[in-house]
């Protein structure tokens, strides 16, 4: 056996990984080769040095930063769940209102036409329901309690074709509402209309109006989900800006990797 072949076995030999045959081959060569003997000594010494090398403790700040990001994530998930529950509750409220409206309308048409309601009137009715839902939403958005306003924002999920007015109201809520939770709900509601270029541009611009880390992260996530490459510049600004929370910077960095 030549030195070159032996070298292939050396590390295995030093780590006791060879089978009996390989081991014997290696040892026969080793007896007659000074060079391989010294290399084996070095290998064993190196492996010993590696074994002695100990692991380092990370700083305690690492754990507290982790707990911060965990709590932010938890509150985001929590808000989503609340949203789902509230929606079902509100659904019944709206359904009751709609039922009343239908009863009223049918009664009205019964009296005036003596029975038949044609398709024209049905679509008329649909429109009225829609505008009524919008009215409910707009008035709830003026409520003092943030949870009422969140519910208002969530009503939008029930709208098939919200009017321009509704979209503009949502965009205004996103940038101006005093509660970060309401702003976040607005992001979630607007997500559905992000196919609209205007909504999309406004969402990108919205980074300029946000200071709350949770809102910032929600917006970052949405941009990543939408694969909106034009937001990359905003991400970079968050990373470079001094007064931004580290967790937001981290999220922006991760997001940037997906967008570039």
């Amino acid at each position: 056996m030549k030195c070159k072949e032996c070298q292939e076995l050396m590390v295995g030999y030093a780590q006791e990984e060879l089978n009996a045959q390989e081991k014997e081959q290696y040892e026969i060569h080793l007896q007659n080769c000074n060079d391989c003997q010294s290399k084996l000594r070095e290998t064993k010494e190196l492996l010993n040095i590696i074994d002695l090398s100990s692991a380092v403790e990370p700083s305690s700040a690492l754990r507290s930063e982790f707990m911060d990001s965990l709590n932010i994530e938890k509150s985001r998930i929590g808000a989503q769940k609340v949203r789902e529950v509230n929606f079902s509750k509100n659904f019944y409220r709206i359904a009751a209102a709609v039922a009343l409206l239908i009863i009223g309308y049918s009664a009205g048409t019964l009296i005036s036409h003596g029975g038949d309601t044609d398709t024209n009137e049905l679509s008329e009715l649909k429109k009225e329901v829609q505008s009524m839902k919008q009215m409910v939403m707009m008035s709830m958005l003026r409520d003092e309690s943030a949870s009422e306003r969140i519910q208002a924002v969530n009503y939008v999920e029930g709208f098939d074709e919200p009017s321009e007015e509704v979209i503009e109201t949502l965009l205004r809520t996103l940038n101006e509402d005093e509660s970060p939770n309401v702003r976040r709900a607005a992001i979630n509601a607007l997500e559905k209309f992000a196919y609209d270029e205007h909504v999309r541009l406004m969402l990108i611009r919205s980074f300029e109006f946000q200071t709350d880390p949770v809102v910032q992260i929600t917006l970052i996530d949405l941009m990543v989900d939408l694969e909106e490459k034009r937001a990359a510049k905003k991400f970079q600004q968050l990373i470079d800006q001094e007064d931004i929370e580290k967790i937001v910077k981290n999220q922006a960095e991760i997001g940037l990797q997906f967008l570039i």
Partner: protein
Amino acid sequence: MNQATLSDEELMIRVREDDFDQLVPLFDRYQKPMFNFFLRLTSDTDASEDLVQNLFIRIMKYRSSYRSEHKFRTWIYQMGRNLFYDHYRKEVKTREGFMNVDKVNFEPFSAHEEYEVIEGREQKLRMAMNQLSDDKRELLVMSKFQGMKYEEIAKVTDMTVSNVKVKVHRAINSLREIYFQTSEL
């Protein structure tokens, strides 16, 4: 239910179902090994802590991609590797000479040894490690420093077990050459 008795996989399944508190024991189990994994790869304490932080953010974000039949440890190393490559791709242009190594305070492992002796040896080992090629360094770190078996490394790196074994052996050989060459200088 006592978190301490749950396996990594059981905890991660709960995290996947949005029970985020179960990530805390996982963090406690893995922050040190993952920090040291990154530290051996980067020789940069701050960057390694950032990488651990980002790793756990990724775990939260991509929790639904965890498959319960996979070992959590394999999964976290796969995520950690990807994260490191993303980070490294960005850094590689700005990276300076290999000798620019952070001073890392390793804990003394034996009361009989002088601190300077340990520090000197660690420094020399790190400098030698930094001269290895990236893939050799990574395999060496997983096999010798993280204590991973060839089978596990094979899963993480998507290589065959025999291929991993050959490559780890070669990496140790290269490190030996570098390490003892520098002592002669």
